């Protein structure tokens, strides 16, 4: 009876194909209705899956359709799994996806490639839902690489430009580096457990005693984490995400903020019992996450492009999620995925609304004073800003606070890094808000033509704003008198197959820590706001005071230039040498053509004796006869 649930991922796939084939002929209204409707239908079906899952034993529903791969002992079913984790994520993907689809109708209405855009976007929803719901690691990997493909296509959506295809290529290839980790991790897990089905894998892992030395498991989970750093833009593979802003803004909101980039966190949560067994990996994850959170936040301070600020902010927030995971707070990490999906989608869509109003102007230094012109955009973005900075009561407050608390329990240094990152986050967000919405307009022409966006765009903003304000109440931490409901909700997924039960509860000065970090964040937010409220003067003076630091931050630590020089250029050099030297000179020249030439040459040499002159032959005959005589007579 639950078999119809395969429609959840398949509806977007079917409509993607339909739109791709017929969208141009059917016209924009039909395309829009089909595209938004299919994702809404997936959302409705996900709701029904949710209620079915709630009624299922162990909160787990596993459906298998057919055998995808089967060779020897390797068997991979094509199936879906519905448990609290996958249901929650499927609802986020299809729900926020539907809102962003709706927004896109308004944003892309005048674009020639309207149908192509929605074909890609629906294909993305299909792959993302496959990633979320797949019942085995290879099937998760289908979604994993599939969303990478859609990301490639959508970043490069404006394919007639130079920069967009380059950014798409960079995203795909950087992700593939991570995917190698995934493949290696899968091989190791298959060799160790003999299965790649999520359920079997975790059940078998649950039977292992935690005291065993797990060299192979540590290798496997580390490899999986490398995969996660690619998709979720962590150090050092974060470089593709800022460039990914070359795509249309709704794409940045859906793929590069709310859903796809959180796949790495989802992967770790999916395999939480395995990661639980490998403390070394968890420690690595925590430090990489904290470093990324801090590092990306510093770059966000000096960016001029409104989308670039948000992009580095996303990298930084993803770092927080990993910090939570690394502190063994899988639920806390996922909770931040959940709240971040709301407020970051909101901020990106708000930025898109600003860009739309300013006729594709993305430079913050050319904005200013838009508060009156774009009231809905302004107020909703304000809520998003309060959420991301962790203003008490707003969603980011609860999720970030839980992560910082767990980080403190792991190591106070991690906590400190997280707090500094939070202060910087608050600063650059208020800088962004002040530059865009306060002060005098710095580009009067664009300002005069600015207008609030249509309802298809503002409605999603308003819905997301409500979510950004309230989403945090799902998981009020115990320190604040709540029950951290997220944790209880996710527990069946996060402890699946484990015999050893959950870890004991730690104690720490939770309220005090929250008070410190919140007060600091508020202070830095105010500093950022008042520095830029009246224009650029204070900021420019500060830049002039520390020119080197400013230049380094503005140029993102020269990471791209360094990679080009020390990684890409040497690889190209190697390829060139392998071709021109090894292939052409060594193998072909010395191994093939030289023997060939020698054979030809020896033929030529011997051929010179064939002169056709009788006297030469007579001479040779005489010499030969003399030689024979001499031999016989000796």
């Amino acid at each position, binding site marked *: 009876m639950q078999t119809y649930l395969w429609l959840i991922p398949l509806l977007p796939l079917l409509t993607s194909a339909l739109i791709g084939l017929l969208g141009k002929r059917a016209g924009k209204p039909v395309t829009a209705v089909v595209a938004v409707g299919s994702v809404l239908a997936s959302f409705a079906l996900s709701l029904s899956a949710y209620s079915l899952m709630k009624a299922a034993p162990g909160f787990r529903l596993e459906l298998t359709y057919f055998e995808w791969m089967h*060779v020897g002992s390797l068997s991979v079913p094509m199936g879906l799994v519905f448990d609290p984790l996958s249901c929650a994520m499927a609802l986020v993907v299809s729900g926020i996806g539907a809102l962003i689809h709706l927004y896109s109708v308004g944003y892309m209405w005048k674009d020639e490639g309207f149908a192509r855009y929605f074909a890609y976007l629906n294909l993305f929803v299909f792959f993302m839902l496959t990633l979320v719901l797949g019942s085995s690691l*290879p099937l998760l990997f289908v979604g994993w690489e599939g969303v990478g*493909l859609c990301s490639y296509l959508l970043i490069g959506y404006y394919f*007639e430009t*130079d920069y967009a295809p380059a950014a798409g290529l960079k995203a795909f*290839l950087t992700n593939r580096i991570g995917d190698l980790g995934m*493949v290696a991790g899968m091989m190791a897990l298959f060799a160790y457990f003999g299965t790649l089905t999520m359920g079997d894998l975790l059940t078998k892992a649950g039977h292992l005693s935690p005291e065993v030395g797990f060299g192979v498991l540590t290798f496997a989970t580390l490899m999986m984490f490398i995969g996660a750093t690619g998709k979720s833009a962590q150090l050092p593979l974060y470089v593709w995400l800022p460039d990914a802003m070359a795509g249309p803004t709704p794409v940045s909101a859906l793929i590069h903020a709310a859903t796809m980039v959180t796949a790495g966190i989802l992967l770790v949560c999916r395999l939480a019992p395995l990661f639980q067994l490998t403390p070394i990996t968890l420690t690595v994850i925590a430090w990489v996450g904290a470093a990324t959170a801090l590092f990306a936040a510093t770059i966000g301070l000096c960016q001029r492009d409104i989308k670039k600020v948000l992009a580095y902010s996303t990298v930084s927030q993803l770092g927080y999620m990993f910090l939570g995971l690394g502190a063994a707070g899988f639920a806390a990490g996922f909770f931040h995925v959940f709240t971040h999906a709301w407020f970051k989608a909101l901020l990106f869509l708000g930025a898109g609304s600003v860009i739309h109003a300013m006729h594709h102007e993305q430079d913050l230094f050319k904005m200013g004073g838009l508060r009156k012109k774009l009231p809905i955009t302004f107020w909703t973005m304000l809520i998003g800003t309060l959420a991301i900075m962790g203003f008490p009561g707003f969603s980011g407050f609860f999720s970030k606070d839980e992560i910082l608390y767990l980080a403190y329990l792991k190591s106070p240094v991690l906590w400190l890094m997280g707090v500094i990152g939070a202060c910087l986050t608050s600063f650059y967000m208020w800088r962004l808000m002040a530059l865009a919405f306060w002060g005098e307009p710095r580009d009067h022409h664009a300002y005069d033509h600015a207008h609030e966006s249509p309802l298809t765009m503002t409605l999603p903003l308003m819905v997301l704003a409500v979510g950004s304000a309230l989403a945090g109440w799902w998981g009020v931490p115990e320190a604040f008198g709540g029950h951290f409901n997220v944790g209880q909700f996710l527990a069946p997924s996060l402890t699946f197959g484990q015999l050893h039960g959950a870890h004991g509860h730690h104690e720490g000065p939770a309220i005090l820590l929250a008070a410190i970090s919140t007060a600091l964040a508020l202070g830095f937010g105010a500093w950022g706001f008042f520095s830029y409220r009246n224009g650029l003067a204070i900021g420019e003076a500060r830049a002039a005071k520390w020119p080197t630091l400013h230049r380094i931050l503005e140029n993102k630590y020269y990471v791209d230039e360094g990679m080009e020089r020390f990684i890409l250029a040497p690889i190209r050099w190697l*390829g060139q040498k*392998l071709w021109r030297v090894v292939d052409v000179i060594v193998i072909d020249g010395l*191994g093939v053509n030289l023997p060939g030439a020698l054979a030809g040459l020896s033929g030529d040499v011997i051929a010179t004796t064939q002169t056709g002159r009788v006297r030469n032959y007579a001479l040779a005959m005489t010499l030969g006869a003399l030689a024979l005589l001499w031999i016989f007579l000796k």
Partner: protein
Amino acid sequence: MLTNWINTHLLTFLTFAPILWGALLLCLPERQAYLAKLLGLLGTLGLAVVGFSLMLRLAPDPSGALFLEHQPWFTVVGLPVDYHLRLDGLNFWLILLTLFLVPLTLLGTWNSLKQRSGAATALFVMLEGTVLGALFAQDLLLFYLFWEAMLPPMFFLIGIWGGQDRKYAANKFMLYTLAGSLLWLVALLYVASHAGGFTPELMGQAVTAMPFGTQCLLFVAFAVAFAIKVPLFPLHTWLPDAHTEAPTAGSVILAGVLLKLGGYGLLRFAVPIFPQAALHYAQPLALLSVIAIIYGALVAMMQLDIKKLVAYSSVSHMGFVVLGIASFTVIGVQGAVFQMLNHGISTGALFLLVGMLYDRAHTRQIADFGGVAKRMPIFTFFFLVVTLSSIGLPLTNGFVGEFLILNGTYVSGFAWGRPMAVVASLGILFGAVYLLWMVKRVFWGPENAAEDSGTAHLHDDLNAREIAVMVPLVVLIFWMGLHHRTFTAHSEATVTKLLADIKAPSPRAVQVIPADAHPALHSDHGSSEEAH
């Protein structure tokens, strides 16, 4: 009556019908080129229909064969040679792939050749017959004859209808392959004289009695001949030239079918006859494969000519095939068998697409293009899908093959299995690098503004004929990616048995096929066996 004869001599029919048909077409005068092309297409299409409809109905007999034709043929210096054709799990889909690709290629390159296109079609049809013969042949001398018979048609296709450097490429192709196969012939005759015949099972028995050093030498002689065909690094340098110079149809069949004979030969003959030596050389074979995977990809990355890029990508992809074989696990070897089919479909399709582009633009230099997507959206769609299959995106065929091979290598139990599997997985990354970088420079970006650029010559998108060629290939790409059992179920039993025999502790167990399954073998050659 003819249907009756075909039903009992299916393999002979499939082999010699195209050879005779091609010879007939060769007799048509040049002005009848259109007729020759039409008859060639219809003939190979009919052959495919017969092959598919009859082969898919066959059920395996106890020995694992689906169809056998076996009778004594002649005796040379006391050694009996059999006319022995066999269809079983190992060659089943390779044969269907050949039957499928040939008419598709003829249709896809319908207007590519302007000169003497009738004769090219005729040679092409003959080539199909020789390939099928080599795939069917079970007796090694018969196999050798078909193996060599594949060369002349290809030699002429490259040498007459090729590009600028066609003579060099044709000679190189011919001499490279001949050099390998002459060495192999010597080894073959040596083993045959000890075994008293050319059947693999007799040879396998004889080899177990030889000193190990001799076995190794003989295996190397066999393996080199097959490695040249694959081609395996460092014996690959004939391939880029042959591919670049060959006409499109030649490249498609070269990549799609001819290269497969190398991997097939290893699995069918070299490994079963010399199991101990093969296991002994598993590591160097795997090492060369991994080098080929990475090396081919890095060199492909720097190519300036799209076709040459695809040619080098073949080196990389076929490296996976040999790696799978060298893993000596069911997963790996099955992956290798499947990867051979994948490579036939994906690389064949890539060569067809490059040919379609070349027919319009008359250049293949990457730098001559840019912005093709705007001019030819349908072509771009197909090219992208085939590219994704070639870089092994999940849900396409390429992923399943590479995934099986890598996993098979990882669990092989050899000490080198794990590190090599991890290093080989780099091929997945580099594959994406060279193909998608090329796609970016050719298809995306602003249109190439140069006066005489390739892009400027692109006026029409794919026509109905070209779409009709691409659609079945795309369907197959996804079918194979979603349900590989259709294509690997036949070979699973064969491969499992082969590996069980190799790894069996008793050397006497090394027998390809149980002897009692072939009463004819004993009754006909009993005397010569005893006499030896």
